[in-house]
């Protein structure tokens, strides 16, 4: 404990005394600040000496820690001292940041002072103080006395606090804003929260439209149920049958997840809309009436089924694979037939996977923004309502905030229901008692059910994508079907004149998107899986609250997050708008819950005695994580990396608020083209993105591969 604390003391002090405290132009990695050490590049130490006396404050934390380390010998006293110093230092540091802003001060303190947003020096200083605090906590015997564990918990709590709760506080405050700028109060909150326009059930009684929350709820449940069943069918086909075209199916199940938003909706409209190809066909051939059935809840549902089934599949495949064959064999030797084996053994063991897939589908559906935007017709959904409350003709942040709370209460309920259903049963199936053996094949009825459900869906997906490619090569889909490569030339043109020039209009956003996605993906996976590890394997105070807070960012629709980030990070102490960093951060915290859920599902299948064996063999938690857990979590890591990479490229809702001229993202570029009616370029760009992501995903699968627990993953012959 003493050594770890001492190390963080030195690191923190170095950050305080050597690195530039504030944000520097060009970023800290450009090292331009080295030439301006007394000005913009000055450290907190220099600033304190030259008049910004409030910057002395963090130093109290370090001084306290140094005194404790020098004077106290007793373990418990040292630990308490470190906790006090770390916490005190952090509080002082946060205090000065929240009080003294760029344009003045809050609460009438330190009048006249001002400062820019915190930078690298502040980051390192804060990290030093935080880890002194967590090391102290481990010294108190928490987290089994393991500083690595408490440090990890501390870091994740701090990050979630700053990048989820802090911005959400801005949104929450505005939920209590009174109409007409009359200040804040609770009087208008409840009537607005329970307003009929949100909760109305009129569509059931046939007397009008349902409220936005009702629509979202129905949609969410249907989508979650549908995607879970479809995902399970696919997972079963992959692991329990000898289906001949598995590779091809696999690609098809990945396609929708790597499709930028609007594209599926757009393709559906171009097929089934009033002027769509299929609609026209049936109207010409059979004289069927052209209807607007696609615009409304079932159109959105169709689009969501196409978009989100792969997520359920990715969650379920790891779980279905993980069910130990010996348990299925045990059941069969107990004279259960294949159906009984599946029904009473395999299926219950897959419960955590099913519950997670369902929860993900539900939350994804509620927070989805792209599909309802294009397909909702006259019906309202929460996520789009929030968007319009903010960007609509009459901006109403209070309404947006209240709708967000409604959304949150729905997702929260789903989350608690899932916890209740799973209970505290143990689902470990990789027990460390190695087993050979084969997965039981499905019984024929089930097998054909899976085929019948999954194959038409796959075929439909395939047709849709062939059409998207087709659409990118014609002048104007639906009207002028002359073949052309015009769209690609305009977006991705390259000329060779004194070297290569990327003159296409899309290149800029394309490179930005790829860079940001490649940076965000490993970070997201790391944060997500680390959280999962803590949740499944460690015991610590406030674990439930911790779990809930890490899931929270997922339940908040992107639009809300985007607005919240703009409100919170547009001025000191943390000033990030306009940087690429804010995009990376928003992706990490939006997508991390998927890593968490996938990680939890995968890790609850690894018997705890595996980690414990490693620990008693002298490995520390970090080594155990690296050498035992991670290698056994191949599929979960793959899922997390894939998902976060792809989501960073395809997500639109939060991004739209956070892009800047310098850091424009592919999706916001596409939205711009769609708004201008340039469908050709939009679809061409989407096609290029799809191919890019496909290559990346395949590369990831090759690199990470699958775990080899059994020499051969055989499937029983029929």
């Amino acid at each position, binding site marked *: 404990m003493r050594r770890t604390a001492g190390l963080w003391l030195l690191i923190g002090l170095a950050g305080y005394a050597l690195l530039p405290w504030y944000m520097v132009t060009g970023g800290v990695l450009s090292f331009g600040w080295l030439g301006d050490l007394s000005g913009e590049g000055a450290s907190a130490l220099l600033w304190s000496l030259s008049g910004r006396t409030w910057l002395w404050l963090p130093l109290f934390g370090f001084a306290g820690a140094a005194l404790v380390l020098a004077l106290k010998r007793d373990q418990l006293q040292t630990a308490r001292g470190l906790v006090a110093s770390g916490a005190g230092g952090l509080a002082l540091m946060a205090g000065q940041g929240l009080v003294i802003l760029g344009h003045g001060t809050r609460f009438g303190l330190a009048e006249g002072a001002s400062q820019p947003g915190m930078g690298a020096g502040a980051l390192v200083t804060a990290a030093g103080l935080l880890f002194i605090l967590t090391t102290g906590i481990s010294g108190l015997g928490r987290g089994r*006395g393991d500083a690595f564990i408490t440090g990890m918990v501390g870091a994740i709590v701090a990050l979630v606090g700053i990048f989820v709760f802090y911005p959400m506080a801005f949104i929450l405050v505005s939920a209590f804003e009174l109409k007409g700028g009359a200040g804040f109060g609770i009087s208008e909150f409840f009537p607005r929260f329970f307003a009929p326009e949100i909760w109305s059930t009129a569509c059931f009684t046939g007397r009008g439209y349902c409220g936005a929350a009702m629509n979202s709820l129905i949609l969410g449940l249907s989508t979650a149920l549908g995607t879970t069943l479809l995902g399970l069918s696919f997972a079963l086909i992959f692991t329990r049958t000898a289906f001949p075209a598995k590779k091809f199916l696999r690609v098809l199940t990945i396609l929708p997840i790597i499709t930028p938003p609007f594209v599926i909706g757009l393709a559906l409209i171009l097929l089934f809309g009033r002027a769509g190809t299929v609609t026209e066909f049936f109207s010409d051939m059979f004289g069927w009436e052209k209807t607007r059935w696609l615009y409304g809840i079932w159109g959105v549902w169709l689009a969501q089924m196409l978009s989100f089934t792969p997520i359920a599949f990715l969650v379920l495949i790891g779980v279905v694979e993980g069910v130990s064959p010996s348990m299925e064999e045990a059941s069969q030797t107990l004279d259960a037939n294949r159906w009984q084996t599946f029904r009473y053994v395999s299926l219950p063991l897959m419960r955590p996977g099913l519950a997670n897939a369902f929860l993900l589908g539900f939350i994804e559906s509620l927070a989805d923004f792209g599909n309802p935007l294009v397909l909702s017709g006259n019906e309202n959904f929460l996520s789009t309502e929030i968007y319009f409350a903010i960007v609509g003709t009459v901006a109403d942040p209070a309404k947006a905030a209240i709708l967000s709370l409604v959304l949150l209460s729905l997702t929260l309920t789903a989350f608690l229901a899932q916890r209740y259903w799973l209970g505290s049963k143990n689902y470990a199936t990789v*027990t460390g008692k190695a*087993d*050979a053996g084969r997965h039981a094949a499905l019984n024929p009825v089930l097998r054909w059910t899976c085929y019948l459900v999954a194959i038409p869906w796959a075929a439909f997906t395939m047709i849709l994508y062939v059409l998207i490619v087709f659409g990118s090569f014609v002048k104007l889909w639906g009207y002028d079907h002359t073949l052309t490569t015009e769209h690609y030339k305009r977006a991705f043109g390259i000329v060779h004149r004194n070297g290569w020039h990327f003159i296409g209009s899309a290149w800029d956003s394309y490179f930005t998107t790829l860079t940001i996605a490649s940076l965000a993906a490993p970070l997201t996976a790391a944060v997500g899986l680390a959280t999962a590890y803590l949740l499944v394997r460690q015991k610590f105070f406030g674990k439930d609250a911790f779990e809930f807070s890490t899931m929270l960012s997922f339940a908040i629709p992107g639009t809300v997050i985007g607005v919240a980030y703009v409100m919170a990070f547009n001025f000191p102490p943390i000033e990030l708008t306009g940087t690429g960093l804010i995009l990376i951060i928003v992706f990490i915290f939006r997508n991390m819950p998927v890593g968490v859920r996938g990680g939890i599902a995968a890790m609850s299948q690894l018997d705890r*005695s595996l980690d*414990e*064996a490693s620990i008693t*063999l*002298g490995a520390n938690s970090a080594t155990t994580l690296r050498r035992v857990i991670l290698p056994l979590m191949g599929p979960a890591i793959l899922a997390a990396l894939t998902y976060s990479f792809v989501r960073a490229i395809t997500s639109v809702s939060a991004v739209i608020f956070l892009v800047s001229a310098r850091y424009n993202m592919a999706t916001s570029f596409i939205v711009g083209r769609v708004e201008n009616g340039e469908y050709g370029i939009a679809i061409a760009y989407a096609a290029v993105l799809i191919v890019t992501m496909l290559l990346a995903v395949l590369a990831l699968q090759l690199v990470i591969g699958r775990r080899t*627990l059994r020499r051969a993953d055989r499937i029983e012959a029929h």
Partner: protein
Amino acid sequence: MTKGSVRFDNVTKRFGAVVALKPLSLDIAPGTLVTLLGPSGCGKTTTLRLIAGLEAPTDGRILIGGEDVTHLSATYRAVSMVFQSYALFPHMTVAENVAYGLTVKRVPRAEARERAETGLEMVGLKGFGERLPSELSGGQQQRVAVARAIVLEPEVLLLDEPLSNLDAKLRRQVREEIRQIQQTLGLTAVYVTHDQEEAMAVSDRIIVMKNAEIAQEGTPGDLYDRPNSAFIADFIGDANLIDVEVTASGKETEIELLDHRLRVPLSGVSSGPAKMVLRPHQLRLSREPGPVTLPAEVGYAAYLGNSVQYTLNTPAGQVFAIMPPTANPFRQGDNLHLGFDKEDIRLVPA
């Protein structure tokens, strides 16, 4: 205290409302094999995990090799554990599994490989190094787990029901191997089991636990010969427990058994109701009455080749007896007389 000793100082463990260990103190001498024995749920595994550092005590101190390790994490304790489920890493070969503890301690590769090889040889698995755990039988996996634990040359080796997944023959063989390795290496070993025969066979000392506390501890002989309670008498070896009344105590003890009054060479027994302990093979059966005999009717007789087992109905309750086979065995329904030696009698509180 020296290397390898284990000491609990009033250690308590609670899981929420469940008390898994009541304040417990124990001392384990270096180089001995001590067994924790007791019925399911009595806290054996919990005690073992506390020694390993996988659980932190709610209260009290734990010392290993004389050093206070109460707050030391499992990683840094010189303790290895063999898990009931083996906990072999399924993605590593047998050799990698055995060398794991060495590689995480940064022992040079070549040396680690060599020591792993030696470890595998010790458990009789030379040449199995390149296989995956899934390609071994249960008994072989068990031995890999033992090899993995001993190559680290731990001060204390912990084994949690290491044989429960093996068949009876293999059990005897592996437990002898474990005992031999423990003695060769001079390790301190703490061995959890709920099989009293296994415990008697391998242990230097046995700690019997019941309801989250120690019921009695001692050498196998002590426990068998001087049980301090009906529970121990019955748990360690079979015993007939017969209600008696202690009428006088002192240097010798006088007891009343039905209409007999006996003076037995036991001291320090308090007066009042008690239970008399008699082992099945300490009983005699004959057709003739003796000085101290009880009438007994044969309720059931089982011929086992090298012995005959009788269930007898007596005025003092049902009694179980084991006799050497005779040319003319007793039969069900025979009316006999049951005799015993006063010296064999042990008394435990009722």
